[in-house]
């Protein structure tokens, strides 16, 4: 007990009395520990921080519906739930459709999208003016803008012309060119059936009337009468009896039923008609890429124009490394039938290549700096300890054993190491935080494990650098040391 108290007293006395020298030793250990803690914190956090910077290249994953499947805004939200909010930088839905600008006789690809996400997944988009903030606003690519001559503030009329291919599928009556068929109640409850084929202007190209349920001499004639049928050709729906078309004489009720049947058929296929909306140009988009040949509108407007709410593709920007991305791709493709996830190889692969280089760079720099700093710290410690050779000699002359001298000096060194380590760990974190805020504009994650590691490493370095000079001092004859040789 008394021995231990003596030991403690010797250590504290030496530390207190030789303040300036101990301060030097403490300072040097503190610097070493600061650099250790600071650089390791940065090294551990750099991949995350740098990864976030690389997201400025835009989307690195793409979701597409498979041939049989479909992608909607709801199913997209479902899929996105596999990502943690920190990893998912943004997810932009796109619906591509070709729209006409009838007044300029031009047509161009138009994307329906969510602009709040575009800003996140395509940060390199440069907009002169502003992004559309509400519906009926359009962002126009630079090349399109030059062709049609619009500026921010101009208005333009966009028309959706449904596709004109003739479908053999009788169910598919939404496209013009396909058959429309409808029915309406005629004379005394008999049903009149009408079918028509629309041309690519969505005007009636041919018509067939089935009025066999009507009185043959009156309404029934509508089935055969070519003159009655001919007046429908080239007319656009809806029709009003007595205006665009005249009634078959003596068969007003049947004629009304024919017109009603056509109008009913049209109502059942609203998408089959061209749809026009007025837009205000809010901005001109410059990217240097294909996007300049597109116009961008909101998904809501796209839905109003086309009458459909499906998505063609979703671009995802995910802050994760190459293996994690692969895992996500597999997970999404397995879990969601009908949606295929693909990596944007150019972005994902290049990012992995560059990021690994940067990580290696920071690793090597950290290693070199740490190695040199630690050697620097130990040389200072060695200088401080070897200065006390006389003291060691004196103690030895007084009868202290080599072991007790060694223990005392080691204890002193480790105490300094521990103190310097705690100081350094805190200062190092402050430094890492300053770097992170300045370089990446976000705060760094504190590594709790680093505090004990820094303290232990500092103690070991202090102890090791004490050992060598003590060993030398102890080995020498006390008489020689005291004489000062």
């Amino acid at each position, binding site marked *: 007990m008394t021995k231990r108290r003596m030991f403690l007293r010797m250590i504290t006395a030496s530390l207190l009395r030789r303040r300036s020298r101990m301060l030097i030793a403490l300072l040097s250990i503190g610097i070493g520990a600061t650099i250790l803690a600071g650089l390791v914190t940065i090294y551990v956090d750099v991949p995350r921080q740098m990864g976030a910077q690389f997201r400025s290249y835009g989307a690195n994953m793409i979701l597409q519906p498979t041939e049989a499947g479909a992608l909607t805004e709801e199913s997209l939200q479902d899929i996105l739930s596999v990502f943690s909010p920190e990893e998912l930088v943004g997810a932009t839905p796109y619906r591509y459709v070709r729209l006409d600008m009838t007044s300029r006789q031009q047509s161009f690809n138009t994307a329906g999208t969510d602009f709040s996400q575009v800003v996140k997944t395509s940060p390199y988009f*440069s907009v002169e003016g502003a992004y559309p903030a509400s519906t009926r606003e359009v962002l126009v690519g630079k090349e399109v803008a030059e*062709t049609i001559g619009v500026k921010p503030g101009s208005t333009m009329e966009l028309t959706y012309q449904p596709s004109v291919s003739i479908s053999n599928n009788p169910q598919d009556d939404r496209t013009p060119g396909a058959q429309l068929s409808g029915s309406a109640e005629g004379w005394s409850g008999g049903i009149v059936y009408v079918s028509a084929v629309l041309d690519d202007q969505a005007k009636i190209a041919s018509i067939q009337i089935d009025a066999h349920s009507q009185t043959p001499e009156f309404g029934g004639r509508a089935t055969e009468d070519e003159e009655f049928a001919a007046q429908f050709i080239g007319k656009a729906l809806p029709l009003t009896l007595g205006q665009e078309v005249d009634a078959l004489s003596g068969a007003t009720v049947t004629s009304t039923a024919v017109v009603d049947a056509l109008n009913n058929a049209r109502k059942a296929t609203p998408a089959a008609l061209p749809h026009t909306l007025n837009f205000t140009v809010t901005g001109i988009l410059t990217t*240097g890429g294909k996007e300049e040949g597109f116009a961008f509108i909101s998904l809501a407007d796209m839905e109003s124009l086309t009458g459909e709410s499906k998505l063609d593709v979703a671009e995802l920007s995910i802050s994760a490394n190459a293996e994690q991305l692969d895992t996500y791709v597999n997970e999404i493709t397995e879990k969601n039938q009908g949606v295929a996830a693909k990596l944007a190889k150019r972005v994902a692969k290049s990012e992995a290549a*560059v990021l690994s280089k940067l990580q290696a760079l920071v690793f090597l720099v950290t290693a070199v700096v740490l190695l040199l700093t630690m050697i*620097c710290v130990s040389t200072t410690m060695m200088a401080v300890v070897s200065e006390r050779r006389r003291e060691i000699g004196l103690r030895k002359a007084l009868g202290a054993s080599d072991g007790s001298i060694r223990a005392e000096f080691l204890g002193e060194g480790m105490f300094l190491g521990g103190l310097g380590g705690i100081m350094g760990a805190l200062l190092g974190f402050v430094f890492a935080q300053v770097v992170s805020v300045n370089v990446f504009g976000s705060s760094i994650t504190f590594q709790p494990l680093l505090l004990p590691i820094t303290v232990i490493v500092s103690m070991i370095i202090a102890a090791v650098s004490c050992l060598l000079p003590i060993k030398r001092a102890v080995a020498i004859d006390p008489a020689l040391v005291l004489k000062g040789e």
Partner: protein
Amino acid sequence: MLFRMIRGVLFHQKGKMLLIAFTIALGASLATGMLNVMLDVGDKVNKELKNYGANITVKPKDSSLMSEIYDVGDGAELNAAYLREDELGKLKTIFWAFNIVDFTPFLDTQVTLTNGDSVKMTGAWFNHHLDLPTGESLDAGIVGMRSWWDVTEGKWLDEKDENAISEIMVGAALAQQMGWKAGDTVHLIASQGDKDVQIAGIFDAGGDEDEQIYSVLDLVQALTDRENRVSSIEVSALTTPDNELARRAARNPAALSSRDYETWYCTAYVSAICYQIQEVITGSVASAVRQVAESEGTILDKTQLLMILITALSLIGSALGISNLVTASVMERSQEIGLLKAIGARDASITGVVMTEILITALVGFGVGYGMGFGFAQLIGRSVFGAAIEMNPNVIPIVAGLIFLVTMAGSMPAIRMVLRLRPAEVLHGGH
């Protein structure tokens, strides 16, 4: 006498002086290594970022948009505008020629396969050998500019091979659909001719290219009778991140004042390089691919800033370490200084002797340290970027000045403090 004293210290107290010289050498090597890496890291990372592909595209002025927006297929290629292939070498004659890393021309067409399917075929340079008027020569083409392509079967088409003109590379999706394998022979029918070609390799690009055929430029030119014509050029250039001046210049270079114009023209901004390309390629419009150009700027800035801060930390660390040790070594010699004072030496001469000793030690340490720092910089350069780090001559005076200041700052206050003590006390061993 002075020299004798100094020599005495340097040779008799070898151990101590070696320790100081060693520490200074460590500090100097750290400073040298880090400063050189920091100054060169921009260039090195910039080269790595070339992985992302071209950052400038060059298109003919007149119809730079038509076919891209309006999907005009057949016949349109007859009256479209073109650039001239023989002008491509001029890219390496512009002011920033040295910054142009790679470039390749493209020309595409639709070809019909034997089963009647129509497929897009693109002609490009692969590893095209170019002898420049300046006497230099280089290999340019998509082998370097499509680093993300995986050649899943066969190999990259080699333009140095004599059969290159009758070889193609096929996208993975198309190859799978058609059941083609590397080595198969395919018959292609184009607008102005047809040819049997062999599949050199199949690539997976993860994009639209997977459904296309790629061949050497000459083949597409021959099949469509468009000698010496190219429809676009992709250029990969090392650039300086844009600043406010560059953004103003990009909008309209003519609006700049002549001094700003000079600064802009003589800085490797992507807009300045685009402008210079337009000057040498007839009838062209060069524009920056913002996805690549903008992101490169961000990443480059961040990496450089990170390196600057790490360098600053290690400089401060080594400076404190050195001055610490120097202070310790001066204080250790308090007895000797006290003795000198006791036998009548003036303060100034004592300071002179001690400082000279320490500065000579520092000089030796600096010399060794610079050599070690060179080694560290090369170690980092070789193992990370596979290329030597360029040693900047400005680093020598910076490090030398730093070491000088640090040694002075470490020793002067200590010497003064020791001198202030009374010799009797010091010699007695008290404080």
